[in-house]
């Protein structure tokens, strides 16, 4: 049965959702339980998106609500031990492209599912990405591209991952308006998609949480 917070998120009621989270967390309710209610709302939104009833705009708005709720809950969550993340993801828009809208949506959706997300931002050098992968050994690397000028730097990054021996246990996902299945093959990605929810579903499957 859906909680009130989850219902408000599905109704895209930002102010009411955040007010309720604020009141209940201040009243001493378990922040992990409140976080779980928020997650449930986001999962319900995701299901409606999957069924074609919701569109990307609803995903974006609910993502903003979730981020707002997280900001309220963060101080309370620091005082309790949360569960380990289900997986670690590095996201980046590579050199030549400064667009980040799609990447940011995916980052929010991954956090909803309790992934630890390291977002390197835009115009990222291939070497910078590889250093991050060496540092934290993620399960998945996700690339985003809205324009083709990021193609060669993205390919270079995947080449470096192979050269450095980092590719074997790593999944590579690519998305963004200009990408195609052929581009996915060009960089040796495990998945290319234009659909954020498909990308998230793949990540869940990749870490055995589907």
């Amino acid at each position, binding site marked *: 049965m859906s909680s009130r917070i989850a219902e408000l998120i599905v109704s*895209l009621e*930002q102010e009411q959702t955040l007010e309720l989270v604020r009141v209940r967390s201040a009243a001493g309710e378990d922040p992990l339980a409140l976080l779980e209610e928020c997650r449930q709302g986001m999962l319900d939104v995701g299901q409606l998106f999957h069924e074609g009833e*919701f*569109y*990307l*705009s*609803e995903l*974006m*708005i609910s993502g*903003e609500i979730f981020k707002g709720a997280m900001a309220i809950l963060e101080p309370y969550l620091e005082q309790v031990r949360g569960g380990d993340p289900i997986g670690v993801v590095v996201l980046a828009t590579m*050199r*030549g*492209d*400064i*667009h980040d*809208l799609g990447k940011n949506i995916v980052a929010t959706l991954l956090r909803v599912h309790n992934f630890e997300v390291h977002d390197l931002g835009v115009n990222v050098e291939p070497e910078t990405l590889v250093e991050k992968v060496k540092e934290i050994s993620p399960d998945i690397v996700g690339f985003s591209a809205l*324009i*083709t*000028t990021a*193609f*060669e730097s993205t390919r270079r990054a995947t080449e470096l991952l192979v050269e450095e021996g980092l590719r074997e246990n790593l999944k590579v996902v690519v998305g963004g*308006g*200009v*990408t*195609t299945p*052929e*581009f996915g093959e*060009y960089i040796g990605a495990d998945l290319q998609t*234009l659909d954020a929810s498909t990308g998230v579903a793949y990540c869940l499957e990749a870490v055995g949480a589907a």
Partner: protein
Amino acid sequence: MAQESMTSDERVWSALRLEKPDRVPVIPTLLPEPAAGLTGVPQAQIASDNQAVVRAVFDVYDRIGGWDNIYPASYKPIQLQAAGVFPMKMRIPGVDLDDQTPFQLDEQEMLKPEDFEKIAEMGFDAFFEEDFLWRVSELTPETKADEMMQLMVGGAMFLGECAKRECKPFFLANGLHPFFILSLTRSMIPFTQDVFSKPEPVERALRRMTTDLIEKQLLFVKQTGIDIFMCSEERAGAFFFSPAVFERFWWPYTQELVETLWAEGIVTLFHLDTDWSKNLPYFKRLPKGSAVLELDSTTDIFAAKEVLRGHLCLKGDISAALMSIGKPEDVAAYSKRLIDEVGADGGFILGTGCSVPPDAKFENLRAMVETGKTYELTQA
């Protein structure tokens, strides 16, 4: 091989009228950034000298042997900002980016919620001139005037080069759809929140902007002598928004725009990026032949043909990815498929999905143009 029996202009207008021309018209969307990439001119130079843009565009045109109508390209990015075509912050190669990275729009939340009422009251152009331009730009009134003068000089140079080659611009009048302008200037997520939570001010702004756009473009299109208005929209389709939002915030204004222009014989060319598949049936409500849909390859153009066959002309849709990383034979094969399946009964213009990308291969563009110019004639 059969001979061409139409001029380029006759061929293009035959397609727009949903007829079957002597061969498919070919019009790649060659903008300054790909012209730079294809000629080896640094992006920083193209972004700082609009006469260099004109030289690069016609260098590509000449080396390939020309095509049918040509996209107007005689500007540098800051001039589009000054003119209000892209009312946004920008990152400029050689200034904010390295010399070889093409210019990019820098979408930030520059328009505030209270600005919707100002736009509704003043109109966007007056609001832009008096207020908004100075929020997004480092131009001064003096440098803006200078840029506008350079823009006119470059435009005259472009038309002169067209005249030398007896080719015509595809259009000269163009602009972003009001919905797209508001989304870009508010930035996408805040604007989406406005649409859902505070829709009335958005609607009042859209109402005023649509009225002004129609009035302005009716005059301007007639001055240009080319009865096409190019309208860009990347965000109103079902990739982003539900049909309910589309029906309330985009379609009525769009239908009014198209029908009013069409009453004066003006065709609206829609540049529609992202997937519009679910929205295509709406376009059947427009008068036959009143619009062209330029698709970017994310909308299934073959399905679009089934929906709009005999009603509206389609243009597209060789993807940027194919132009960038594909091989000439792949481009040629896809061009033939488009001609066979979308262009078989006319009402089709072979073009690129969105624009030719800045890193397109020259041989890929050549393959597209040559296939378009020869494929049907060799079959005849």
